């Protein structure tokens, strides 16, 4: 979850008193307050609005929402000066094909501002950049760089520079192996024979994106006034918008934006503030929202969300990435209108409620069982091999049929194959609870056959202390009550956890649905239990079929 942190004093200076009313406005703007501290306000920014991941970006939108500075905010953009040029070498094409760049001048950095810039950059890396995979950004002090700059890819051993926070020169490969940031992001360059770099006209390497900047030319200090920004990645349109988010935030801090010429063969100039237009229909808006707005009202609401509106079209701010469709504009209209101002209404349409029949049958089975004093339990659908196999006396070689989930963060690593082992686990964890203990569980179990996973509903009942007669009585009662006609037969091949000669096979028609019997002391020992257990587990699918 992405957040921004705002200094309370700054907020009150720029926006107004931070009282309950303004807090309500903030929530209704769609940036809920995540945390409030003495000096700071932390807001959640939803993933569709990375342009609000800086205080500047958020403030701009929020002021418009309050009706203070509505419409599309204009920024002054200066044309590229001599040498404000990036030459993109074709060697980057299959590695990191695009970069977009800008120069911002006249900034007055202090510690706070440097921190802020680094934070914006980091937040965009994590969210929009998918941890630098799609997009990575670099900011450099212009005075240490000799323009023009080249973006090219080289063999890792031909890249040599001092990375940030280091004292020695390292090669491209060494950075990935030795530098903490290098190690963290190394997978992004794994398998590449060449690594991308920015290099200036003095042949100084500025950075190796998306990994790290140079300590010599890629570090902003309090003396920095003018900066060079680059943003590299794979989706040119997105890179442009991301660059726009950053340069506008810097302009709001007092900088002047300068464009640069990107030479890709053909020339592109960034930052690109070309305004994109999109159609919005008053009729669609009213239909979707259930409102009756006129065009004037629509215009006013759109302007509160930072758009310009004219004759059925809006101008999309060049830093917004979330406008894919007219519905995105209509949502913004709804936000400007105020969610609190909508009058909820239930339409008078008639439909018939219907419960899933399996759920009905499961509930009935539950009712039968609680009638004979059984307590229902509820376990996880994930389990582990020790509980599912080892404790149940199942040989290692049969474990191959388990369905494993990848990279589980706990020791629950496979989908359960039965409920029996979970009931034994429950009994073994409740040896201090009053006896007798009679429990049951109804739930899904998972199996795999020829790579195909199937899910079925099972029922298991366990009683302790309990014997064959008692557990069979429960099964027979259930069978009669739900008219399942479960047959009890001598078992030919029974699960290893039962005592041979005290286990029966359960069938409906000729279909085997489960087993019933007394648990072998060997298994009870595995579960550290000192009370006899009798148990059955059946598959409910046949019963569903009969009752459906």
């Amino acid at each position: 979850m992405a957040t921004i942190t705002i200094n309370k004093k700054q907020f009150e200076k720029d926006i107004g008193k931070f009282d309950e009313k303004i807090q309500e406005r903030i929530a209704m703007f769609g940036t809920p307050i995540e945390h409030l501290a003495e000096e700071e306000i932390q807001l959640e920014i939803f993933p569709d609005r990375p342009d609000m991941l800086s205080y500047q970006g958020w403030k701009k939108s929020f002021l418009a929402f309050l009706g203070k500075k509505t419409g599309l905010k204009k920024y002054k953009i200066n044309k590229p000066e001599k040498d404000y040029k990036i030459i993109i070498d074709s060697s980057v094409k299959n590695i990191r094909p695009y970069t977009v760049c800008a120069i911002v001048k006249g900034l007055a950095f202090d510690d706070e501002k440097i921190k802020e810039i680094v934070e914006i950059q980091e937040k965009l890396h994590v969210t929009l950049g998918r941890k630098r995979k799609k997009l990575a950004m670099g900011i450099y002090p212009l005075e240490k760089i000799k323009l023009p700059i080249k973006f090219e890819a080289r063999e890792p051993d031909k890249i040599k520079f001092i990375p940030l926070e280091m004292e020695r020169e390292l090669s491209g490969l060494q950075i990935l192996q030795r530098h903490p940031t290098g190690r963290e992001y190394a997978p992004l360059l794994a398998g590449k024979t060449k690594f991308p770099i920015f290099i200036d006209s003095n042949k100084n390497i500025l950075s190796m994106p998306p990994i790290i900047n140079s300590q010599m030319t890629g570090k902003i200090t309090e003396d920095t006034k003018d900066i060079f920004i680059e943003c590299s990645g794979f989706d040119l349109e997105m890179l442009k918008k991301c660059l726009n988010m950053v340069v506008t935030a810097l302009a709001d801090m007092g900088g002047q934006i300068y464009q640069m010429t990107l030479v890709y063969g053909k020339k592109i100039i960034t930052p690109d503030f070309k305004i994109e237009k999109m159609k919005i229909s008053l009729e669609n808006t009213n239909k979707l929202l259930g409102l009756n707005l006129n065009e004037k009202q629509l215009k006013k609401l759109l302007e509160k969300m930072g758009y310009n509106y004219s004759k059925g079209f809006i101008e999309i701010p060049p830093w917004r990435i979330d406008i894919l469709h007219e519905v995105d504009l209509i949502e913004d209209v709804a936000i400007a209108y105020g969610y609190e101002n909508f009058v909820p209404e239930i339409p008078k349409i008639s439909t018939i409620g219907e419960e899933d029949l399996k759920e009905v049958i499961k509930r009935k089975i539950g009712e039968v069982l609680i009638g004979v004093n059984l307590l229902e339990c509820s376990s996880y659908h994930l389990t582990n091999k020790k509980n599912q196999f080892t404790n149940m006396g199942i040989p290692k070689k049969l474990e191959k049929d388990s369905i494993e989930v990848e990279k589980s963060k706990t020791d629950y690593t496979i989908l359960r194959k039965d409920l029996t082992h979970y009931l034994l686990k429950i009994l073994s964890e409740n040896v201090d609870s009053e006896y007798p203990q009679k429990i049951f569980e109804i739930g899904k179990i998972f199996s795999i056959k020829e790579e195909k996973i199937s899910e079925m509903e099972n029922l298991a009942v366990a009683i302790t202390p309990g014997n064959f007669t008692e557990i069979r009585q429960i099964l027979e009662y259930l069978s009669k009550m739900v008219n399942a006609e479960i047959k009890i037969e001598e078992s030919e091949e029974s699960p290893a956890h039962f005592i041979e000669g005290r286990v029966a096979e359960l069938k409906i028609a000729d279909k085997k649905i489960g087993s019933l019997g007394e648990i072998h002391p060997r298994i009870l020992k595995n579960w550290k239990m000192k009370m006899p257990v009798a148990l059955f587990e059946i598959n409910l699918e046949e019963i569903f079929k009969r009752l459906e």
Partner: protein
Amino acid sequence: MKIERIIDSLNPNERKIIPYLSEKNISEICKKTSLDKVSVLRALEYLQNKKILNLSTKKKKIIEIGVNGALYRKKGLPERRLLNLLSNKRILNLGEAQKQTRLSNDEFKASIGALKKKALIEIKNGKIFLNANKEEIAKKSLEELFIDSLPLEQESLTPEKLYSLKILQKRRGIIEIKEKKIIEIKLTELGEKITSLDIKEQDLIEQITPAILKKEQLWKGKKFRRYDVISSLPGIYGGKRHFVNQSMDYARRIWMDLGFKEMAGDFVQSSFWVFDALFTPQDHPVREMQDTFFIDKKSVLPDKKIVKAVKQSHEKGVGNSKGWNYSWDDEEAKKLVLRTHTTCLSAQTLAKLKQENLPAKFFAIGKNFRNETVDWSHGFEFHQSEGIVIDKDANFRHLLGYLKQFFKKMGFDKIRFRPGYFAYTEPSVEVDVWHKEKKVWLELGGAGMFRPEVTIPLLGKHIPVLAWGMGPDRIITDYYEIKDLRELYKNDLTKLRKMKFWIK
């Protein structure tokens, strides 16, 4: 209560022991009433419940006879045996004396010491000389008297007896001091009155048995013993549905009341239904193993027409949408996952829906999964319940109307809607409910209208779909005042037995 009523409520054993309540000793009461100890104790307990007496337990040190002491009580103390021998011989060799008394070295030494101390003998040149007259010999020593009077309470010892205790304690195994719990009976004022009356063994009817009912003369005109109807009893516990399932059934009923039809489906689903069909781009973080449980198997994609439309929706967009502008990979969509939300069931329902059945309403309720560690506030399994309304005339105000009604039925009268964000809805809503007791807004649900990028591939054209969901786990933990989410799956039988029913 009247004293007569109390007397009528006395059971046979209580009646038996009442005359002997002045006995200090429980075993004494046992002897006199010929009841066993358990029965006496239980009767005393009942009498205490009736406020006839108070019981208190005290720890007391009791001096009992030891292993050697028991032997000496029969045969006499070693010094008594030596003295008896000397009363005949008057003078004896030390060695000869030990031999004749058959005492061990220790016993012999001790007996010489004891007699010397009392000046009954003298030792000269290896010989014992008796120094006492017949009366002195015959007189029992303090130690002997002490042994005879055992067991004794240490507290009540006279100085003389304390002295004997000190001496005997030094000798091995004669006495033993044990700590015992002593139950003391103290009559109350009511007790004093009742014991002063002559309580007889009366012919009161105890438990009614079939035998009594069989013959009228066995009950007609007779008195039934009054029962103590107030004092506490051992509890019993009945069979019960798991509290989570009870509350799920409740949510299910609400959906039914509102005219929704239940959707059911598998937990193991393809990424296609969980993510792609819901317009979640393939590089979205939720589609990483870090967040979602993947199973290393591939599934089969559904109908080609739908797959093609979903691909189009992601890559270039459908219905005037720009799409996500990337190359959609069907291999990524085939990856199996444990469903992260029940919305995949909504997507499948839309894909199967026939236009002639509109408007339609569906709901789902069930488990979902995320790759998460387990602690008091996190778990890898969680419940979700959600509903969709497919209606060509549906609008945002209808969505809010359904939400208001739904949460009202869940017990939340005051709710608030805020802008929210979900990849597959626009507009999106966060639903907060007002918690009356805690006086805070709780974030309980999410809602929205499905994006055209979702509806067009699944329904063939854009028809408004209202959708909302909520996490019932939060309502359950709140209702049962559970602080730790793990308790939902802990199956602590003692707790489950005591758990209240879901009464809503």
